[in-house]
């Protein structure tokens, strides 16, 4: 199994940390992982994206132009990455701020109201975990207990008390993801 994922949105949305938690979860189930951020003269509020690869085999290129899954969190990222999903692949997006809905018919498309749910719960910080939950529902490539172990590894001990809240957010995301286009 190899899953090549792009997570893309604004800086500050937790794009990079979502990727890191996913990568750590892969390690917990003995997979090979790579986490490659776009980097450059970035600024706050600018776009941020990260390629995450989980595989049972040695990982080849961390630089990709086609992805099994794109997790898209703003319009700029939709414009850039919708076309880069492999035919038969998966696109998951948060409709908040999306003005042009995805139009492809040859991929699975799902919607997760991450921003809205996080705001409803009064906890915008768990936004990225809600989205991660949505992804894990449609692509259960890592088990939830491995995500929990991954969180334990990636967070410093002083933040471990927040793990249950994050797991809860992932579960909320799992329940909230909606099908837009299914092959």
């Amino acid at each position, binding site marked *: 199994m190899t899953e090549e994922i792009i997570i893309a949105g604004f800086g500050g949305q937790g794009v990079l940390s979502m990727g*890191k938690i996913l*990568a*750590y979860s892969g*390690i917990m189930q003995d997979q*090979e*992982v*790579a*986490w*490659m*951020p776009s*980097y*450059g*003269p970035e600024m706050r509020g600018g776009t941020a994206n990260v390629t995450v690869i989980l595989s049972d085999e*040695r*990982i*080849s*290129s*961390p*630089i*990709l*132009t086609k992805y099994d899954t794109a997790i898209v969190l703003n319009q700029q990222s939709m414009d850039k990455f919708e076309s880069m999903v492999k035919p038969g692949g998966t696109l998951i997006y948060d409709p908040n701020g999306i003005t042009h809905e995805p139009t492809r018919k040859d991929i699975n498309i799902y919607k997760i109201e991450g921003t809205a749910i996080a705001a409803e719960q009064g906890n915008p910080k768990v936004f990225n975990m809600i989205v991660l939950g949505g992804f894990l529902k449609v692509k259960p490539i890592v088990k939830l207990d491995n995500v929990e172990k991954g969180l334990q*590894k*990636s967070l410093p001990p002083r933040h471990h008390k927040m793990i249950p809240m994050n797991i809860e957010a992932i579960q909320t995301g799992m329940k909230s993801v909606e099908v837009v286009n299914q092959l």
Partner: protein
Amino acid sequence: MAEVKLMKGNEVLAEAAIRCGCDAYYGYPITPQSEVMETLMLRKPWEETGMVVLQAESELASINMVYGAAACGKKAMTSSSSPGISLMQEGLTYLAGAELPCLVIDVVRGGPGLGTIQPAQSDYFQATKGGGHGDYHLIVLAPASVQEMNDFVGLGFDLAFKYRNPAMILADGVIGQMMEKVQLSEYKPRWTQEEIDKMSDNWALTGKKAHRSHNTVTSLELDSYKQEVFNHKLQEKYKLMEENDVLFEEIQCEDAEYIFVAYGSASRICQKAVQLCREKGIKVGILRPITLYPFPKKEIARLSKQVKGILTVEMSAGQMVEDVRLNVANNIPVEHYGRFGGVIPTPEEIVEALEKQIIGA
């Protein structure tokens, strides 16, 4: 077994330095490798192993501090990125001329000049052909994964001390910024003064001892005939490196009709290109030089008799391709494909280049 961690290439360089018993790091921040010093400063190894970590006032100061520590037989290192490494060239040729071991890390970015901060491999010539003046070589290691960022720190110091010659890790922004699974090396203690006295008694500046006259560390010689004798000695040393310490990896070369020659992150992208080629029925393999100096000449010669064509893939306008062309032992096409200035080639572009420049040519 050591714990598996998820770390950035640059962070791993710092961690590996502490664990291999490095005595001193001197550096000056520059993107895309600033995490090396940042990680060292956060880890505070001076409290743990006694390792010195010092932010110098410039790259010139860093490399000359390395010279000073190396002259005393210590394991000293620095890291920088392309423009900073250019500033260090005087120090590097002096280190080579004074036969001092040290480790220098270049996390390459796009050039020339201040260039860009994105990944590139355009410092191959500078790293392997001297960079500074005079007939000298650095030992140059090219990691292609975060794990190799860990492994090559210890290896770099080992080779540097084996030959009393500066060693360089030539990485790039991709390997430096990427996080992968890594198994960190076990801790090795720093050498004690007694161990240094014993090991490097015939050259290091450890004080005048009763059993020998004083040691001198210099790269200056006023007698040209003596300089020539010394240069012959250096050349003998380089010959030994070429005979004994060439490292490379062959990937799917057994049945290959074509090969990519690529190092570092370009070799990773080529691995994807190989997958894409093989899905199309084109049998391609990769020769990945791990030591860029000494270069795997014999392997190029051997593979050139097996395959129908070679494409070098570099994030430069074509530098390593010259060494590949010098060593092919058969009349086959050898072409270069590159993106540069901080642009990274995609696997699809590489497949297309192979089809156009080699197969269809």
